[in-house]
């Protein structure tokens, strides 16, 4: 509205129109996602088809608003080359406001179109396992686990280690943690896969660069309703089982192992001194494993064509390479490289940048699926 008024005022006094400048790129939004919103692109066509459809009166309304704002933005942009400095300044302010509104509207459209997964709001279990490369792989696994622990702190998520299986020299064979907080699963779900490191290992005497791998698995934590387990299907093993138990015996071994009899899935925990707590943590891991098996059946069909996989399908994909000699980390799914590996491994803004890019690309793929004409 204000734009129109401004334009109207300008028209009265300055009949000559300045040529429109090229559009300034949005500070947010990845390129593929932006391109989807291009005029006459498939998304636009799709949105136009939504007009009057029962599927989304809300969607149609937002789409219409978007077109309006974009039109207003284009009209205001032509004022950027006006002779009058005040007009130019006003135009700049207007444009910033429009761009903000447009970005919000686009996000809304994405939000309305991209189906949210049953699991997006859930907490998760993060598991790391050393792969190929012996001691070096295990050292790298410990560093990656530490990175995610820092990342959780950076995002103010709750991070609770469930299991550590260490190596002899300070590395990790395997570890898992329970992570919870706003948006945790949604962001971390794309971290699942094989991570590869290229560097001179600590144990290497001749200075040669080695390649080692480790695997990250991200399992959504089911809510009570998502997954119901019959207590009769569980066998709980503890050290107290042999003997009389009770006052008769004083033991300190509070390790717990739970076996889900129908599937043979096992979950163990000895993180805590309280046996009850170990049982609770072991149950959490078991539930996540069972839920993940259940979800895999559902998602495998949907995700077949995508670059960014989740669940067990994605677990064997080589998703990222950490090249220390070149001080560079590359995610192969979106072909994005970041420099300053030390900073990346601190699990703060640099990791966050990559994680956000992945999320945007995943949204893009989901959006493409929604709007593509069904064959």
């Amino acid at each position: 509205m204000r734009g129109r008024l401004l334009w109207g005022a300008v028209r009265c006094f300055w009949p000559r129109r300045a040529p429109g400048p090229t559009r300034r790129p949005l500070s947010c939004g990845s390129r593929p996602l932006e391109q989807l919103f291009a005029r006459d692109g498939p998304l636009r066509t799709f949105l136009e088809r939504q007009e009057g459809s029962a599927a989304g009166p809300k969607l149609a309304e937002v789409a219409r608003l978007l077109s309006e704002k974009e039109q207003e933005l284009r009209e205001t942009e032509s004022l950027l080359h006006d002779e009058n400095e005040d007009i130019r300044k006003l135009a700049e302010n207007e444009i910033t406001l429009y761009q903000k509104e447009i970005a919000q509207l686009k996000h809304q459209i994405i939000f309305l179109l991209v189906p949210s997964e049953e699991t997006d709001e859930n907490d998760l279990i993060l598991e790391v396992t050393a792969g190929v490369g012996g001691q070096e792989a295990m050292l790298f696994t410990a560093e990656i686990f530490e990175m995610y622990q820092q990342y959780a702190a950076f995002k103010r998520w709750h991070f609770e280690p469930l299991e550590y299986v260490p190596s002899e020299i300070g590395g990790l064979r395997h570890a898992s943690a329970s992570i919870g907080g706003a948006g945790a699963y949604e962001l971390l779900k794309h971290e699942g896969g094989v991570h590869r490191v290229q560097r001179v290992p600590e144990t290497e005497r001749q200075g040669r660069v080695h390649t080692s791998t480790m695997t990250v698995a991200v399992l959504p934590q089911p809510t009570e309703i998502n997954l119901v387990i019959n207590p009769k299907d569980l066998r709980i093993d503890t050290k107290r089982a042999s003997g009389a138990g009770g006052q008769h015996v004083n033991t300190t071994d509070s390790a717990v192992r739970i076996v889900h009899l129908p599937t043979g899935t096992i979950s163990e925990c000895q993180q805590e001194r309280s046996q009850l707590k170990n049982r609770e943590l072991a149950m959490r891991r078991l539930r996540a494993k069972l839920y993940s098996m259940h979800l895999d059946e559902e998602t495998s069909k949907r995700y077949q064509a995508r670059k960014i996989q989740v669940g067990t399908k994605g677990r064997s994909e080589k998703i990222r390479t950490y090249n220390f000699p070149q001080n560079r980390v590359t995610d192969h799914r979106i072909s994005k490289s970041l420099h300053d590996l030390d900073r990346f491994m601190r699990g703060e803004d640099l990791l966050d940048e990559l994680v956000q890019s992945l999320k945007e690309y995943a949204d893009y793929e989901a959006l493409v699926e929604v709007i593509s004409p069904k064959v």
Partner: protein
Amino acid sequence: MKLGVLLCGLGRAGATRAFSSWPPHSPLTGLVSASELVGHWTAVFEERGIPEARQSSEYIVAHVLGAKTFQSLRPALRSQPLSPRQLGRIQELSSQRLQRMPVQYILREWDFRGLTLKMAPPVFIPRPETEELVTWVLEEEARRPHAGGVEGSPLILEVGCGSGAIALSLLSQLPQSRAVAVDKGEAAICLAQENAQRLQVHRRIQITPVDVTLERNWAPLLPWGPVDLLVSNPPYLSHQDMGQLAPEICSYEDLAALDGGKEGMDVIVHILALAPLLLKDSGSLFLEVDPKHPGLVGSWLQSRPGLGLRLVAVRRDFCGRPRFLHIRRSGPQRGGGTVDTSSRLQPAPVPD
């Protein structure tokens, strides 16, 4: 090398000190990591026949490094060398373990349902089964219609509180509740009070020395009632059980906290007799007992219908043994009068 000197030196000097019983193991040389130390002490304990050799050394080393369990120690800390002070401390604690002291007394603390409680000999060390007793009480409480609304409710009385594990767990999970905890032992009273203070619930609990096996002691208890919940893990070992206890228990724990008389029923029966005097109508008594007892308790109650107590449910522990009893009281508040506390299974009528 420094460590080697440390260990050897102590060994040689140790004629009168506990370290003189140092086993003839090759001393560790060079810088030692936590993992290596655990390996070392595990071997030492195993050689001396100390039960739970690996767990004991893991807990001791972890404790000195500031962690609760060895598994929760960050991997990096496990391979770093330890300081001489840390090594010395671990040795001190390990030599106590060589004397069969329970790990909980060595560390002077232990966890119960997520609470860390101070432990001190000879006060009874909470067993894992009892964590489930508390779970059951909480489940039943959640079922009741009022559910957490009224201040001071539920009012809980614990008999034989020991370190305070049961009462303090309940207080921390039921924010409106209040508790009275009694125990025969002075040491238990002191420890429970200290734990209540540490957990910041001391204003909601009254801890008093009382021996419930003496009826003349009951009168001062009565004004605390009537209570909603009576809960106890009373001494329930039989004489036969008492004869088979491990040195950890015999030499360090208060045997009065374990001894339940010939059949292990003596203290249980006193609590059952006390219950009608202290419980509200529809109030509940939750007991942990020996797996041999549920049937005996059922019979005992059935033969004394005047008490107004009914065995409502028996619950198994996580190993499938019937260990927990839920007894409910029904009927108007009773006054004084004597109660037959004989634990013999005779249908003795209760005088009104």
